[in-house]
């Protein structure tokens, strides 16, 4: 009797529990981690397409110094939305979506620990993102860059609504991210399959655990920073009003206390993905598993201690710069170790060249290059030259685009058969992968040189005649190539969904638990509770000799026969609570305080409804009996 599942079982009086299994209602009220994971992944890819379109326009404008595709104001809006979308609405949610789908499967759990909180996390993220995008139609998108330095965001310098959309939208989607991260932590601590000690947890899940901790420590400062600006703009406080003696530098500190961990929040799940792909296709265990985990933890901790390396040029003085420069160097060590360990995994393996591993190889190359420029940027003296230039743009695209995005594309190919039961075309996949990777380097490699030649970032035109034309033209042409690659990938996804070859549970000959259940997984995930007694449990079952472990007997898992599998009930409240928050934010933005109060009261109502509704649901039995409600 150690655990305390919620026991409040009062039925929702106003909103009866929905039980749809198909249709829009079923998606709006779902609490199933796989459905929410799919929603996360699809929304993230949609946002990514929008961001890619914005990036295409940016590159087109920079093709030559005389292009007049967009005017300066629109250019500012484009790169701001590109950054905001990629960081907050595309890449990070992609990691969280993959975590949603695969963490419970990898640890043999039924669902996340708090399914409704999970739904709330998704909806508030999606509605927040949608809200930011409505700004294009409501008076202009934010135009202050993704880190929105004060005092550019103050009312006197930016009277339009764009900044309000940025602040409110990211504020509420940040709430969702934090909630989901807490949920993931509890899930990974509490819901691992019997026998799965922490040192038998798959690396992807480990990286998600570290990422979740970084999220819960990094997002509150950002939330505070957003609240401060919102209060400044809506209620007339003085947090960033320079006439009152405020220090705009405070925003930079609060933002980067969030912002640097955010980089690792984005990259750690990617590390996890690579750590799944490489062993699978090398037919070999991950080299140095404990070192991989430890270096991940070290990255997580150090990630919180390097924030001012984004601020080396703000005049903090030599002592502060030295301190943060050294911590930044230190963070390079565990990252280097990870790269060596991936190479070590492939060493002596039997490497099968599938599309996912092509992305993994591209990741290794790109991330190594990004790491090298990262070490360069950790030197304050040199950073004083290239800070806020295209050199930095190239660096963080190598890390976040080449690092995270390429590995997530690999993850798409890797897990697609698990999610859909069908394979994507390998042939088209490899062609698209090569084009995408070449296009990627075509865009960003020339930008290093443009930066060294003196091209600051965020300019919608550059001085002619100082040698920047060639590099910008190359970069823009690279963007066309990468665009072709992305379109091919999209075609492949559609092809895979409609005509892909049907495959069994384990098409890749993989190693972790998610490949044990059928593809796509049934709504109850596992019929039998898996039991684990090694790292790579599925591999151990398939090749017990090679692993030198005795796999647990096939019937070792509890069959859930006593209790059956508990399927939590669907609920309207997460969606309604998110909608209340979103409309409340619109109301505040348009200074309609009455509507804001109404939304607030409705939100409180949904919270009570949520609490008293209870987890609900029904149980599924596999002993021949039908499921019963």
């Amino acid at each position, binding site marked *: 009797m150690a655990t305390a599942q919620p026991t409040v079982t009062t039925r929702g009086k106003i909103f009866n529990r929905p039980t749809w299994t198909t249709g829009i209602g079923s998606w709006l009220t779902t609490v199933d981690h796989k459905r929410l994971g799919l929603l996360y992944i699809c929304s993230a890819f949609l946002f990514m397409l929008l961001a890619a379109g914005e990036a295409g326009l940016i590159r087109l404008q920079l093709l030559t110094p005389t292009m007049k595709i967009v005017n300066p*104001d629109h250019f500012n809006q484009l790169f701001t939305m590109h950054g905001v979308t990629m960081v907050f609405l595309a890449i990070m949610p992609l990691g969280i979506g993959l975590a949603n789908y695969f963490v419970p499967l990898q640890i043999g759990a039924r669902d996340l620990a708090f399914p409704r909180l999970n739904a709330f996390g998704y909806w508030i993220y999606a509605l927040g993102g949608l809200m930011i995008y409505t700004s294009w139609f409501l008076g202009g998108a934010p*135009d202050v860059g993704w880190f929105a330095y004060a*005092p550019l965001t103050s009312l006197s310098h930016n009277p339009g609504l764009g900044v309000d959309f940025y602040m409110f939208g990211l504020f509420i989607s940040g709430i969702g991210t934090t909630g989901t991260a807490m949920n993931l932590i509890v899930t990974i601590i509490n819901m691992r399959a019997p026998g799965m000690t922490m040192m038998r947890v798959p690396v992807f899940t480990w990286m998600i655990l570290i990422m979740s901790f970084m999220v819960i420590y990094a997002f509150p400062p950002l939330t505070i920073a957003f609240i401060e600006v919102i209060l400044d703009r809506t209620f007339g406080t003085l947090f960033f009003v320079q006439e009152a003696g405020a220090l705009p530098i405070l925003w930079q500190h609060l933002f980067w206390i969030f912002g640097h961990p955010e980089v690792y929040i984005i990259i750690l799940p990617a590390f996890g993905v690579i750590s799944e792909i490489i062993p699978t296709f090398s037919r070999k265990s991950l080299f140095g598993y404990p070192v991989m985990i430890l270096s991940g933890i070290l990255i997580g901790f150090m990630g919180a201690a390097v924030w001012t390396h984004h601020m080396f040029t*703000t005049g903090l003085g030599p002592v502060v710069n030295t301190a943060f420069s050294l911590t930044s160097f230190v963070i390079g060590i565990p990252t*280097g170790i990870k790269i060596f360990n991936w190479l070590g995994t492939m060493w002596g393996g039997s*490497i099968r060249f599938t599309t996912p591993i092509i992305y993994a190889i591209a990741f*290794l190359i790109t991330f190594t290059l990004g790491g090298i420029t990262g070490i360069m940027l950790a030197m304050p003296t040199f950073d004083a030259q*290239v800070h*806020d230039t295209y050199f930095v743009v190239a660096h963080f695209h190598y890390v976040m685009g080449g690092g995270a995005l390429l590995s997530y594309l690999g993850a798409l190919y890797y897990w697609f058969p698990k999610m859909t039961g069908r394979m994507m075309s390998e042939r088209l996949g490899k062609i698209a992968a090569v084009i995408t990777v070449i296009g990627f380097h075509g865009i960003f490699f020339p930008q290093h*040189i443009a930066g060294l030649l003196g091209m600051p970032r965020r300019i919608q035109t550059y001085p002619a005649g100082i040698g920047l034309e060639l590099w910008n033209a190359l970069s823009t042409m690279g963007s066309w190539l990468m665009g072709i690659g992305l379109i091919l990938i999209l075609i492949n996804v559609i092809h895979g969904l409609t005509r892909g070859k049907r495959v069994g549970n384990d098409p890749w000959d993989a190693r972790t638990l998610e490949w044990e259940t059928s593809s796509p997984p049934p709504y109850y995930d596992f019929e039998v509770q898996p039991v684990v007694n090694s790292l790579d449990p599925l591999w151990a079952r398939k090749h017990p000799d090679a692993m030198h472990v005795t796999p647990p007997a096939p019937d070792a898992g509890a069959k859930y026969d006593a209790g059956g599998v508990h399927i939590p009930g669907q609920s309207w409240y997460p969606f309604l609570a998110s909608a209340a928050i979103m409309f409340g934010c619109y109301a505040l933005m348009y200074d309609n305080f009455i509507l804001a109060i109404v939304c607030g009261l409705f939100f409180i109502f949904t919270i009570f409804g949520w609490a008293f509704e209870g987890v609900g649901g029904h149980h599924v039995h596999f002993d021949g009996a039908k499921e019963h409600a």
Partner: protein
Amino acid sequence: MPMRWLRRALPVAFLAPLLAGCSLDGVQSIMSPAASIAREQHGLFMWTWYLSIPVMVGVFGVLIYVLFKYRRRKDDKMPDQSHGNPMTEVILTIVPIIIVIMVAVPSVRSIFRTQTVVQATSDDVVIHVTGYQWWWKFEYPQYGVTTANEMHIPAGKRVILQLNSGDVVHAFWAPRLAGKVDLIPNQDNRLWFDTDADIKDQDAGFDVYTGQCAELCLGAHAYMRFRVVVSEQDEFDDWVADFQQPTVATTATDPLVAQGRQLVATKGCIGCHNIGNYSEGMKFGQPQYPDLTNFGLRHTVGAAVLDATPENVATWIRDPQEVKPGTRMPTLWQASDPNRDQEAAAIAAYLLSLGVEGGTQAMAQASTGGN
């Protein structure tokens, strides 16, 4: 055959950037430093770059070797399911530590060499730099001189900048001289650098270095540029003297200049801009707009966007939004105004006569700016 064409074109397409890459010199390039601090920054970059070559060769070499050697073959046996090798792992941990130390030591030394606050002596040139949307104000408290977008310094002297902002965050970046420091409201930042004692462009008698705002400041951010003119000490002294007592010419032989002088008042230029040459000892305009005193000595117009030739200045005055989209400078004529071109030319002629000996003809500009 289209393929033949492609076969011929491809090597060219790949080689061209490589060949061009051999020369990374440029007027705004980090790779051609012209002062001690920029040289130090450049040296640090080159050191890490040389250091990274073996790293890249190592990592990519191993990667290629592994991919080739351990690719799956038909008769592949199950690889050994080893979980690691403590000895290898220790070595692999030590290698990045050593690399990082090799980078960190010179880096820290150079921080204290370049970023320590220096005490000004009477030998140094102190300049207060204030950033505005979207231009630069340079004030010389030692000489009581205020100018805009063009910083003059004597060769071989140490220059100490005190940086502040009048509105939002900007960043002062002179790549070939000293790197960058942000200009932040309510905060005093400082930057110092040495200039070389010799002038490289002996014909012109001065060297020009370009720079640009590097922190997003909305609007015309891309056009917020400046130039640094390094000249011999005596030329610099002349320049200072000119600014301390600007020549005031109330009459002009050139009718165009005379007309321009009138227009400067009637079109309202002096509502925003100070022109020290306009009348003796008078200050016009407002501080958040560029000071046009001795404009004729300038190399550029519109925050270093255009070279200050008579045509360019006239174009700028005629239609500022065309030259620098987003600028605060208003368009003073209707598009249909028949006098527009002529009056703009007159104002340009007047402005370019300011501070120039003779007061009638714009100084022939020997700019090395390149644009």
